[in-house]
């Protein structure tokens, strides 16, 4: 009897896989390509995208209370144009007082961070805020960004090259994009 069931299973599996396993192959290819094409087109790595997401949450949290878990940041294609789609589930809008407080707190926080950075540059997120603080003077920012990452090169040899490259990339790209809203 076991011979028959084995044989049956073999025959059945010959027809079956096209439903279970193989139906995924094309979809896997499609979604892998979709992601890789967006990265190719925009020159943004997943790490930088994640950082951008974090900074956007920080910025928007000053004005509205939002559901951070459900915030979606995607590149979408419409025709031959690539659009940055940001979907923000808003819990409630903050009132004027709260906004003012948040801005003050933010400015204070940055002031402290800036002072810290001059002593010991350690974290990538802090570095990026240095550039955005001084974003108004782009040339100066770029110089500072380079020198900071240079120091990092020497200090933390454990960090791999890729990470440092990403940091440098991020600094040059973020300098003009984020300067205006952050430097309020």
């Amino acid at each position, binding site marked *: 009897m076991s011979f028959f069931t084995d044989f049956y299973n073999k025959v059945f599996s010959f027809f079956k896989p*096209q439903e279970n396993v193989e139906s995924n192959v094309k979809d896997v290819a499609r979604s892998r*390509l979709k992601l890789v094409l967006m990265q190719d087109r925009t020159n943004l790595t997943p790490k930088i995208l994640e950082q951008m997401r974090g900074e956007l949450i920080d910025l928007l949290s000053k004005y509205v209370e939002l559901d951070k878990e459900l915030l979606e940041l995607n590149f979408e294609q419409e025709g031959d144009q690539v659009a940055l789609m940001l979907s923000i589930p808003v819990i409630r809008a903050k009132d004027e007082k709260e906004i003012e407080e948040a801005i003050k707190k933010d400015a204070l926080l940055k002031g402290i961070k800036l002072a810290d950075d001059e002593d010991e540059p350690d974290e990538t997120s802090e570095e990026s805020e240095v550039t955005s603080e001084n974003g108004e003077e782009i040339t100066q920012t770029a110089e500072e960004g380079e020198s900071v990452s240079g120091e990092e090169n020497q200090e933390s040899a454990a960090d791999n090259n890729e990470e440092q490259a990403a940091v440098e990339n991020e600094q040059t790209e973020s300098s003009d994009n984020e300067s205006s809203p952050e430097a309020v």
Partner: protein
Amino acid sequence: MSGRVIVITSGKGGVGKTTTSANIGTALAKAGNKVVLIDTDIGLRNLDLLLGLENRIVYTIVDVVEERCKLKQALVKDKKNPNLSLLAAAQTRDKSAVSQEQLKDICEKLKKDNDFILVDCPAGIEQGFQNAVAGASEAIVVTTPEMSAIRDADRIIGLLAAREEIESYKLLLNRVRPNLIATNDMMSVEDVVELLACDLIGIIPEDTGIISSTNKGDPIVNDEKSLAGQAYRNVARRIMGEEVEFLNLEEDKNIIGKIKNFFEKTIKEIKAKI
């Protein structure tokens, strides 16, 4: 007369640029157009082989550029069709032997007494590509429904879109295998078009006849029975401005699908009885 200069490019190698050039060129010439094919893959020439003209080449594009012969002397006439001629690449030199300006100049001269100038581009996005694109105002991007070919095609489309001289670029999807699409093992034509966001000019099915036609040096468009040949002839008609429907490649998929469905149903019934 002012001919149209169309570059045939892909980024990735081996997706069928040269085969496409030979077939579209032959089909356009068969339809009564005067056509010149230019092989810009200097150092790795192959278009002459596909056309069966390898023994007739006396002068190459490098000889023209270095003024060892006149442009007309370097044009090799096709065996079957006097409307079609080939400007071959040199085999002993490299891509730096011809500059963008020189290629542009050759295209301008050929425009005067030809309807179509098809430029067969080398693989890659370096100098060879830049040269080939220099004289063209239209482009056909050849790709296959595979990951790497699609990714490279996307790069090429980006580069073409950035060039002002390129007025239009279209996608030619080569080596499509309907049976693999039917089993969801290969991305469909719609998937590729959606990913690349580029208009289609042709869908060419995988055809073993291509191998024998290459071996014979006789483009498959000359084979009236071949499906790939039919698809290439349709591409030529679309280039000429005709509206031609895309071939229905899913027909035999349906037959295979029906047979499979039948077996699957029977097996399910047997299983239910057990």
